[in-house]
């Protein structure tokens, strides 16, 4: 597995875990009340910050382990990595656009801040997860 593929896997795994943890915490805090009453700002910020740090740490730890077996492959990327990165960005971008349009609609209807922020948050999350899945499929199955 090449350096950039490990990064794609690390990002995908961390994204799925971070989003799951966020949803569980929000639902736990909401209890039987409305989710709009949840203090979502610190939860969301911790999820985003924690997700970024965790993805970096997982990538570094995985890189160290892989580097022990193949010292030549550490940190190397090439044309295929760039092509796969472009493809996954293109795939993921659609969800950011959909979320952005959703935010405009929610603002037009003066929805609660909770729904506006979470629509954008899940747009980023789904974009990251779908883009990550597209990346790992391209690494495993091919990109032609």
């Amino acid at each position, binding site marked *: *597995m*090449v350096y950039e593929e490990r990064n794609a896997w690390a990002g995908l795994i961390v994204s799925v875990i971070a989003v799951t943890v966020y949803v569980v915490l929000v639902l736990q805090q909401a209890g039987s009340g409305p989710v709009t009453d949840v203090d979502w700002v610190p939860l969301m910020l911790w999820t985003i910050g924690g997700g970024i740090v965790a993805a970096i740490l997982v990538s570094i730890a995985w890189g160290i382990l892989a580097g022990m077996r193949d010292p030549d492959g550490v940190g*190397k990327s*090439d044309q295929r990595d760039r092509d796969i990165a472009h493809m996954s960005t293109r795939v993921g971008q659609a969800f950011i656009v959909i979320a952005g349009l959703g935010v405009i609609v929610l603002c037009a209807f003066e929805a609660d801040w909770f729904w506006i922020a979470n629509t954008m948050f899940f747009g980023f999350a789904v974009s990251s997860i779908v883009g990550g899945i597209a990346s790992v499929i391209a690494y495993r*199955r091919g*990109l*032609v």
Partner: protein
Amino acid sequence: MVKPTQVTNSIRATREAAGMTQADLARTVGVTRQTLIAIEQGRYSPSLELAFQLARAFGVGLDDLFDYPGE
């Protein structure tokens, strides 16, 4: 499902005839061994620049290494 490319190549046969390993050729053209494997197996279409680099690594023309059947 990834749409297979119609471009085929004889990189593996040419490389083996030249007595080169995948690691040797990958190093020569500046890609990872995994990328070279993907190209040899038809799972990745190289850029035109990389295709030229591969052909030059063997001292052959593009047409000798890559084939496109067309219609």
